């Protein structure tokens, strides 16, 4: 039973003055809610309009072409789409275990005097501006990758397609590591809140049945928190997909599709941000706008998938926080 139906019998039906005040309030909030939808629709429409020349010229081929040459006015989005998706999902792969571990420790195991300061530190990490992460990427992470990590990886796994080419530091690996560090606090702190919201009765029940702490977390708490954690993951992924500055500073900014983590890549957000100001050809501008449209579509799609997943998980064990 949701809040509104529970509250309905309780709300006052007395004097007309109160009622009309309620009415005004209701209309006002509906107006604001409508405005959000309107802004979203207007944005999508404007972008669609602005990218019409490119849509007409390239059609669906825009999505599958790897050519991006402003001199010849030939454009294709594939390397950018690939770069955005690959760097974001790889970042998620790296960040998720650490973030979940942090969240579980903070919520279930950490003594109170550790929980508070560590929690604040994690949240602080989320508040660092992305350009700072970028600078750290340029001056610390990528030289370290180039000199220590990548040669080692190449020696051990050079026979796989993932670690080939000259180790340059800048590239897909640096990009996804910076992203991983950036989305880690988002996922960790939201997941911790979700875990803390799981009612203690569930923990007590599990323990009373003879479960160990670990079994309690795995079999009772995590399933309850599933949909919330999924939400945290989507939040993190959303940040990674749209991240511009930090990525562009370390990823190498080369529209290339390669299996190797050493090779440079590019991303939708950064190519739009860094080229729009100087772009002047009509088709070029339209192509850049269409990249924005694609990013818009990707995030929208992601959110829909997330909704569906949360909905499915949410119908699992009761007690989970929605």
């Amino acid at each position, binding site marked *: 039973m949701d809040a509104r139906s529970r509250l309905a019998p309780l709300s006052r039906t007395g004097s007309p003055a109160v009622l009309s005040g309620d009415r005004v309030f209701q209309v006002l909030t509906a107006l604001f809610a409508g405005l959000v939808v309107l802004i979203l629709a207007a944005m999508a429409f404007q972008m669609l309009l602005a990218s019409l020349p490119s849509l007409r010229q390239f059609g669906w081929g825009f999505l599958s072409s790897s050519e*991006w*040459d*402003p*001199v*010849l006015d030939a454009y294709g989005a594939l390397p950018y789409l690939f770069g955005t998706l690959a760097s974001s999902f790889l970042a998620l792969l790296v960040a998720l275990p650490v973030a979940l571990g942090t969240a579980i420790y903070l919520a279930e195991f950490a003594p109170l005097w550790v929980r508070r300061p560590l929690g604040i530190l994690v949240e602080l990490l989320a508040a660092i501006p992305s350009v700072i992460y970028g600078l750290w990427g*340029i*001056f610390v992470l*990528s*030289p370290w990758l*180039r000199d220590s990590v990548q040669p080692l990886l190449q020696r051990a796994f050079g026979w796989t397609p993932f670690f080939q080419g*000259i180790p*340059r*530091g*800048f*590239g897909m690996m640096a990009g996804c590591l910076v992203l991983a560090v950036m989305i880690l606090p988002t996922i960790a702190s939201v997941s911790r809140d979700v875990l803390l919201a799981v009612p203690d009765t569930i923990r007590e029940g599990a323990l009373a049945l003879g479960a160990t702490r670990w079994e309690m977390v795995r079999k009772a708490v995590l399933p309850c928190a599933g949909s919330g954690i999924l939400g945290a993951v989507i939040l993190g992924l959303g940040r990674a997909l749209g991240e511009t500055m930090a990525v*562009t*500073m370390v990823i*190498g*900014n*080369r529209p290339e599709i390669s299996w190797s983590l050493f090779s*440079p890549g*590019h991303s939708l957000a*950064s*190519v739009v941000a*860094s*080229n729009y*100001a*100087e*772009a*002047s*050809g*009509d088709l070029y501008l339209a192509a850049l706008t269409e990249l924005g449209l694609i990013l818009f579509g990707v995030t929208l799609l992601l959110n829909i998938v997330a909704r569906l997943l949360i909905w499915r998980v949410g119908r699992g064990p009761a007690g989970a926080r929605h």
Partner: protein
Amino acid sequence: MKTFANSLLAVLACAATTVGSAQTISLQGAGATFPYPLYSKWMAEYQKLHPSVQINYQSIGSGGGIKQILERTVDFGATDAEMTAQERAKAASTLHHIPMTLGAVVVTYQVPGVSTGLKLSQDVLASIFMGRITAWNDPRLASLNPGVKLPGTPITVAYRSDGSGTTAVFTEYLARISPEWKSSVGAGKSVKFPVGLGGKGNEGVTGVVKSTPGAIGYVELAYARQNKLAIASLRNQAGKFVEPSLEGVTAAATGRKLPEDLCLSLVDGPGARTYPIASFSYILVYQEQQDATKGKALADFLWWAVHDGQKYGAALDYAPLPKDQVPAIEARLKQLAAGGKALISRK
């Protein structure tokens, strides 16, 4: 209450109106980021001389400057690269390029053991950026740099990933000196570089070069000098190796005949002292000004900038316009008019 309303009205009137005798004339400009430090210096100095003229310049990029002047949302635009034919066709009335100052693009590098004095010839520079020369101990590099111990470090090319006038000038130069570059890559504010890593802005390219041994990239002269980057000497058309200097940049435009639109490509220029990757930076103004008062103020400011303003350039690492080109610019400024009446009335 009434007096408050009156005073508020007066303040608003002062802020909003630009026409009138003792009131502020406010001029809006937008465009290239490269000349921004010089233009803001000019505007500050000019306001000291003419307190009633307030000039505001937004460095939103050349592309944005061109767009805004075409839509007439600003009084003047600014661009590093001359407008393309497609852009010129969009102008509703005659739009002039006025050369204001000179810039140069330099090649910066980080080669272990070679802190200064790297020499590059035209074909070697083009081959490096084409990806044909891939290591610093390549014999072609060695023969240009006798006595320098070049390591076997692989070359990492660094380029601007954002659209920029710097890239336009640099690729124009590469297209001029290398037929292969011209046919396979071309010139423009953003091009498809055959090899390398992209960095956003001068600082992005510098970041890649500084943190990658074996890297080579290109940045603006002013940026390179202010950040004390290692700069390569380039072989010019006359066969001499020149380090970039303000004199070398001005020399690129000295003694050349300006074409009718005043847009002259300065890359690979003649002369023994000429630095080969130089360019004008332009301000864009309509010949026919819609507002006589504002038009007059703008014309006077431009006149001041190409004369007295030039002396502020050197301290900010902008090369002054060569003296022999000023008359052609003067003649162009004298064409600026409002309502059929010339805005500058000098001999």
